[in-house]
């Protein structure tokens, strides 16, 4: 099948180590397009969120149209087009964690940080340091409530241990 001609390359300042990593990722797959989600993860980890340039750069790198990347970023919940706090707390919303008190935990965190306890999507504090988000099942149902702090799982989280987490991250005293 004929592919449409690739978009002209977009300039994106990336460290050499990252472009090398991306080259290695792309090389794993029989078809370049397969690497899209992995490349987006790598760019989001580096940039903090996916900018229009990052999406266009990915499209050009994989010889795709920008829509092919944009439709992924708008579908997959982990991709974001806005920055989040240095500490990103994902609180599990789903049943087993809810039975263990995750909704009270989410409300506690929001109140403590001046966010809307009824808010659902990612909410970031005014100083931009912490983001609290309700997410769906994190597959850690036996030890709820579960919080994913950046990439690290915290189990049996109580309001007390959540405060501890904020303290360790230097967010509150």
């Amino acid at each position, binding site marked *: 099948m004929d592919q449409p001609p690739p978009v002209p390359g977009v300039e994106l300042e990336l460290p050499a180590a990252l472009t090398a990593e991306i080259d290695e990722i792309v090389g794993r797959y029989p078809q370049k397009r397969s690497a899209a989600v992995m490349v987006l993860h790598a760019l989001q980890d580096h940039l903090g969120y996916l900018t229009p340039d990052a999406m266009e750069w990915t499209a050009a790198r994989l010889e795709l149209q920008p829509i092919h990347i944009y439709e992924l970023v708008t579908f997959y919940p982990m991709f974001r087009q806005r920055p989040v706090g240095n500490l990103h707390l994902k609180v599990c919303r789903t049943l087993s964690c809810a039975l263990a008190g995750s909704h009270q935990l989410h409300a506690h965190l929001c109140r403590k940080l001046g966010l809307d306890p009824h808010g659902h999507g990612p909410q970031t504090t005014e100083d931009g340091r912490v983001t609290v988000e309700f997410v*769906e099942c994190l597959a850690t149902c*036996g030890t709820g409530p579960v919080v994913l702090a950046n990439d690290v799982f915290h189990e049996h989280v109580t309001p007390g241990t959540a405060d501890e987490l904020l303290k360790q991250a230097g967010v509150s005293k």
Partner: protein
Amino acid sequence: MAEEHRLITKQFREAGYTPDLDCYLRHGGYDTLRRALRVTPEQLRNEVGVSGLRGRGGAGFSCGLKWSLVDRRSGKPIYLVCNADESEPGTFKDRQIIHLDPHQLIEGMILACYANDVHLAFIYIRGEFAEGARILNLALTEARAKGFLGKGILGGTYDLDIHVHRGAGAYICGEETGLLESLEGKRPYPRVKPPYYPAVLGLYQCPTIVNNVETLCAVKHVLAMGGTEYAKLGRPNNTGTRLVCLSGHVQQPGYFEIEVGAVTFRDLIFDPAFGGGLREDRTLKAIIPGGASAKVFRADEKVTLGGPGLEGAGPKRKVDVLDLPYDFTTLTAAGSMSGSGGIIVLDDSTDIVAALANLSEFFAHESCGQCTPCREGSLWMAKILRRLGSGQGRAGDADQLLHIADNIPGGRTICAFGEACSWPVQSFVGKFKAEFETKEAGV
């Protein structure tokens, strides 16, 4: 007394057992692979067929049959993908395997790949398991360095590489054709079957096997002990061991490995070797037996088993739900399923409407949106449950929920998500209807 039967999790609780290759090798790791490479792939496939192993991901499809359906004459490469997109609410076993014993999974994968003439395989791991992906990448690097992966494995002629591929937070990627779309770099819209059966037209339109993490670990044990021996564990058509995840209102939530069908719900919930009972002064209200999409059981429910035409051996009889053995066939015969092995226990403190509302929010959020009945229906159900839960219920809401849930599944959607979002609604409302009706307007 009921007890665990640990094959896959044998070393998990052993002090000093670490996820590195040296530790795995000290415990006999990769011995099965060494032996397996001396026999033909056909012989290995035959062992898996004889074992009766059924998939541990949710559908319980025969692993041997799945492998036998692979188109081996197309001339195209055959791919294998390990489904590590563990996201069914109530299920938390695959992450344990990945974190505690990644080489067991990798050995199982290499065996499955060799048995099916696969030379390139992927582990599709959900995006939130970033730590799990790191652990697996480290283990794969170790395995490559020792010649268990790569060109000419263990000095022979078999080549294989395995890569870790991360998802990005979408439950639908656990559906195997959605997973393949995602792995191709697209939105994970499940494919229409027929014609897109993975065994024939899978990844890149090539024959593809998609197996769950636990299934691939079980393959290792099948080949280590032989299919016939493995089949002696469990019961006919429900062979081997499986991991059961217990969460909700029990004293000791956690994952347990059982001989399939050797323990009952009563054992799992109340036995000190398992759940250890309910919280003090509580009684059992309901059991979700196999992940959020499985139909709920009332604690006081009597289930009809056996009889002509019904699954579940023996004469027709009424069985207390707590006495149902935990296996594939019995729970299907009882009108639900063991699914992904996730049991959520609900005691009498549970607001049933709120519990269902919680699950319906999940399904509304996770519907991929491809098929109208599922996209709209899952959202309508969540909205109705939201208003019932917040004092805004309207007359007829319970029946309206049933009406919607009855009209999503049954071939109206491309994948089984239609069933998955409807079954909880049909069963919760059907079995606890009064609790929903008291929240309607004018009651």
